[in-house]
């Protein structure tokens, strides 16, 4: 195992770096896209159910199918990492748009009403009041999306680009357990670390949630 690591450290590092990029760029893009889309589902209540349904359908498309299908639509090369990024961005949007909408819907009506009555205009109310109050729900969704993306990247190895997933395909091709083990361990570690970072961010930006539920 140690020998394998030291002999292949460059390959492993490259795979890990690629894995991180392929998983997290879509998280960021998807989050930024999901904010306005989710908001629309709240601003126009009739949009909410169509939004949830479309998101559900998108999320249910098998990842491999999407990886293979996207080059046809986008005109990209089958081996382009862009396919993975776009596919995972679609999954992230599908997951987070609903989360953002649900988060905003969960804001107590009395809170938005009193914000309006105090003279907030719609956009500033959204930024200053509704989004911050919805943040715990939204960040919970972000954790799911991040971990889900980290595991989905590996599937990309089947079409030649997949970060740590390449260690699996290599191991299978060579009937060699070491790269598979290293790939699994690093994937799990990566998911764990990413999740932890989001939890820490959540603690830092929503200190008030620690007091919810019980009164001091």
């Amino acid at each position, binding site marked *: 195992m140690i020998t394998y690591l030291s002999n292949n450290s460059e390959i492993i590092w490259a795979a890990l770096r690629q894995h991180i990029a392929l998983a997290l760029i879509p998280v960021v893009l998807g989050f930024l896209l999901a904010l306005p889309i989710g908001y629309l589902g709240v601003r126009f209540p009739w949009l909410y159910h169509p939004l949830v349904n479309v998101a559900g359908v998108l999320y249910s498309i098998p990842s491999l199918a999407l990886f293979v299908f996207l080059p046809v639509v986008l005109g990209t090369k089958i081996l382009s990492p862009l396919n993975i990024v776009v596919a995972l961005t679609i999954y992230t949007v599908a997951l987070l748009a609903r989360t953002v909408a649900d988060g905003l819907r969960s804001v*107590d009506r*009395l*809170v938005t*009403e*009193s*914000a*309006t*009555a*105090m*003279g*907030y*205009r719609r956009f500033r109310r959204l930024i200053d*009041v509704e989004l*911050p*109050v919805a*943040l715990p729900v939204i960040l919970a969704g972000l954790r799911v999306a991040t971990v889900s993306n980290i595991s989905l990247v590996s599937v990309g190895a089947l079409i030649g680009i997949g970060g740590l997933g390449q260690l699996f395909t290599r191991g299978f091709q060579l009937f060699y357990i070491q790269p598979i083990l290293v790939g699994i361990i690093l994937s799990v570690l990566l998911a764990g670390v990413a999740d932890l970072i989001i939890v820490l961010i959540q603690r830092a930006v*929503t*200190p*008030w949630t620690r*007091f*919810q*539920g*019980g*009164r*001091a």
Partner: protein
Amino acid sequence: MITFDDVVKVYPGGGTAVDHVSLELPTGKLTVLVGPSGCGKTTSLRMINRMISPTSGRVLIDGKDIAGQDEALLRRGIGYVIQNAGLFPHRTVLDNVATVPVLLGKTRREARTAALGLLERVGLSEEFAKRYPAQLSGGQQQRVGVARALAADPPVMLMDEPFSAVDPVVREQLHREFLRLQQDLGKTIAMVTHDIDEAIKLGDVVAIFRQGGVLAQVATPQELLVAPADDFVAEFVGRDRGIRSLSFDTAAELPVAALPDDLVLDEAGRPSGWRSGSQVLPTGGTFTSSDSLRLVTDLAITSPVGTAVRVNGDGKADGVVRHHDLADYLAARRAS
């Protein structure tokens, strides 16, 4: 002054919430809008800051029609207190109070400094400043709600069932403090409640609405008790109107008789009981000339000898009122 000029609100479903209401809420006074649920009182309140717009008619503040004004700017100039306070859960108490000044362009630092002063004003010590709403009791949240509404020193305040979510003991205390605050500040306040006792206790003017958004009577609390406009108002105001109306008159003009022999005084001249045979019965309490006739009546009824004892500022007994003297006084007062 807030003026409702023939205001109608009809909802798209066809229901009439407010039906041709014309009403004036005097400057510096607390006007209570009260009535059963579905009487249009809350709808009326919300038309003052344009949370709801009237179907027809006008609402004016100091003579200016609010329909032409920018909604957000109008609202920043009107304090708003809501049931359960509606505090922002993600902001500390201090930042909740600083909300409107920040919206008006004050720096956060300035607004926070001013907010600290306001917290003290509503009876919350500095240690609450950094807490979040979830760490406060209902009564404390309501105080923060009042402080937040006062933060930009608006001349007009709207209060929507501000005290109904707290228990009766806390409510009583909040009432007292709020009345004291209003005495200092003299805001023009519109308050909605479904509780007629609260309306009578707090209001300078009480506007009673009936079902269908019609004004039944606008009067001072005392007038409501003494002269309800019709059966609906009489029933809504409730039983014991006569006794309750005595709360609004002091005993200043009530004639007293000289101290009788059976009243026991201590060496300082303070009443300590009634002599009855070999024992001394308790007086059960005393009144001063600034107390209400209601208290005097109560004392006369509960006294073991049917006599209420008046004391001066030093607590010395200086006169008594008997049952029948009180009855004569009330009868003469009613006749006049």
